[in-house]
């Protein structure tokens, strides 16, 4: 199933130029596929010279048809590249980010400096109608929530991301702050989309929300927690809609699928369908205590152990939490394209394939 928007409710028409950054990435390539499928005929895909664009190229070849799809290479760290990329663009899907980078400087540079350059590039041309910035669930502090265990768009964002010990979360919080600043100060028509954990062929890892592998044993930390998963097709669909729908400037959308599996279910299915490995369940009280001890030791020892586990981290990753996609459905008319059941099947199959080729 896919979300539908009547053409008169869209802010652009199929011929308008759309820029997708991070287009060669995991979600970006799927997003391009969906845009082409939806009949958008004028796309500019931004990739780095070092990006592996094979998948993107094959999508363009397969779904491009008569569409004009330009793949440009550059680096969003260059202001000139950003100005060139933003020329005549009406809609920007900004997915490029420093993902998987453990160093703060890298994560920050590729998420925040790039976003600033791109927004300024857009301001240079005056053709922009919407800027969709991709954030993440990792920006939420998951404490002091008005709705108790429910995490939704109104929940507070981490105030001190520098204390989290997570370079990616720090960069994402700062990226959101920057987008809000440009929206307020320069009236940039921005929408922020915050996906949960995006899974699917192309991202075969087990999310840390389920647990972590240490010394040959998998520590299962999620237990009965629901895991905020979103299948890559569903996530890309939500991002597409956030760019098209009229009247949602300034909004934030969380993206999670329906029927989320619990961590325990996920792990059981993974072991059954992909591979078996030993795991030990650590109850929440214990994982909280260990995070607390790690945090204190790390502080006391002045970083002899890096501050990667802390109470803040526990709250975002392992605290029992419920999730909702109500706003996504009601404001954007989003419906998952792929059910969780089907998504998990495809994911496990791809994990198995990847294991075979490893």
């Amino acid at each position, binding site marked *: 199933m896919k979300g539908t928007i009547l053409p008169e409710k869209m802010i652009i028409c199929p011929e308008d130029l759309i820029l997708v950054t991070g287009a060669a990435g995991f979600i970006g390539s799927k997003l391009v596929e969906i845009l082409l499928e939806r009949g958008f005929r004028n796309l500019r895909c931004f990739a780095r*010279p070092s990006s592996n664009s094979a998948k993107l190229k094959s999508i363009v070849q397969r779904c491009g048809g008569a569409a004009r799809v330009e793949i440009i290479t550059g680096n969003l760290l260059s202001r000139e590249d950003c100005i060139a990329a933003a020329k005549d663009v009406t809609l920007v899907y900004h997915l490029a980010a420093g993902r998987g980078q453990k160093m703060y400087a890298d994560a920050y540079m590729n998420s925040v400096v790039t976003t600033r350059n791109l927004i300024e590039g857009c301001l240079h041309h005056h053709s922009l109608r919407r800027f969709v910035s991709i954030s993440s669930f990792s920006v939420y502090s998951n404490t002091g929530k008005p709705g108790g265990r429910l995490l939704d768009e109104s929940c507070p964002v981490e105030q001190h991301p520098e204390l989290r010990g997570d370079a990616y979360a720090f960069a994402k919080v700062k990226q959101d702050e920057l987008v809000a600043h440009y929206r307020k100060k320069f009236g940039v028509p921005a929408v922020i989309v915050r996906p949960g954990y995006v899974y699917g062929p192309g991202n075969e890892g087990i999310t840390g929300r389920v647990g972590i592998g240490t010394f040959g044993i998998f520590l299962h930390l999620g237990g009965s927690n629901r895991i905020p998963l979103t299948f890559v097709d569903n996530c890309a669909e939500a991002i597409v809609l956030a760019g098209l729908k009229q009247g949602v400037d300034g909004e934030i959308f969380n993206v999670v699928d329906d029927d989320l599996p619990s961590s325990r279910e996920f792990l059981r299915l993974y072991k059954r369908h992909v591979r078996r490995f030993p795991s030990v369940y650590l109850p929440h009280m214990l994982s909280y205590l260990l995070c607390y001890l790690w945090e204190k030791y790390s502080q006391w020892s002045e970083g002899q152990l890096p501050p990667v586990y802390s109470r803040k981290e526990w709250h975002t990753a392992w605290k029992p939490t419920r999730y909702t996609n109500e706003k996504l459905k009601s404001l954007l008319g989003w419906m998952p394209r792929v059910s969780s059941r089907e998504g998990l099947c495809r994911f496990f199959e791809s994990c198995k394939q990847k294991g075979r080729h490893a």
Partner: protein
Amino acid sequence: MLKVAIVGCGKIADSHAAQINRIQGVELVGVCDREELMAKQLHDRFSVKGYFSDLTELIHEAHPDVVHITTPPQSHFEIAKQCLLQGCHVYVEKPFTLDAIEAEKLIQLAEQKALKITVGHDDQFRHAARRMRSLVAGGYLGGSPLHMESYYGYEFGELGYASGLLRDEQHWVRRLPGKLLHNVISHGIARIAEFFTTATPLVISHGFVSPLLRRMGERQLVDEVRVIVSEEERVTAYFTFSSQMRPALHQFRVYGPKNGLVLDQDNETLIKLRGGRYPSYMEQFVPPLNFARQYAGNFLENLRLFLACDFHPKAGMKFLIESFYQSIVKSGPVPIPYREILLTSRIMDTIFEQIDRRALDGSEELDSMPSFTKSPH
């Protein structure tokens, strides 16, 4: 209170800021990056007084006594020069400069201005490396070193920097005179330079692009290098840089007339190699026990350091920075002699020249190209 600033707020700047903040009597007064956002993020995460996007402003407003330069190597010389001219002591990340000529100029300028300068060869100040230095100084080798072997392994990770470098023809590392080698090998070369006395040893190098990289279409990035360094046919050294050899060693072996030492940086161990022999079968039984005892001793020492909270991943950097600051405050000798910094630069220049020449000639002959490092200017 010693006032310190950092110029260049990229990856390594984090380690500098963290270690500087651990040192008593020091205040981080400013961080600077041409990209103001980068300076701000470092400022926000560490307790730093101010952030700047202009070096002159940093120097005039924050008045640092010492400036750490953690920018890409292409800018080291100009920034260091400006800092020295403005009366600041300078700590430059490795590689010190683009070549030995720049290195000499900086050192001369520092001396003229009665200021101090050092380079970030912090691996040489990790615990086991310091134990090695004191054993050598205490005469354990039975005389000055005769031969050394320095191994510097490198792993191209699947992600990030390495794959970016491999796929990006315009990557800044490719624009360094020694390309990948320039950015990586100075730690391994500096270990050798420490024990040479001449300023112009003979260098014979052989470098090539590994079959793995060639299969990936790479023609420029030399990732396998073997070097012989020789001082008047008296002291010799081998240097090995390899991206393919496993384990990717970071080892240094030094042999004297009586005994030898093996420093393993990855395992933080130092092993003594006894020159003497045991009678008969004892030679097959006692030394293995002796090695077992030494490894156990290294394990216990590492554990002790960890429990004493002195086993940080950047313990070497903290020690080097602290020693450098001490040399400034107490007007003592710098932790890395200038002779060693210059010799490291000269050996590196010679290696790059020989590898370049070989690439231009297409020559396969190893023996045809030994050359002496250029004499000091």
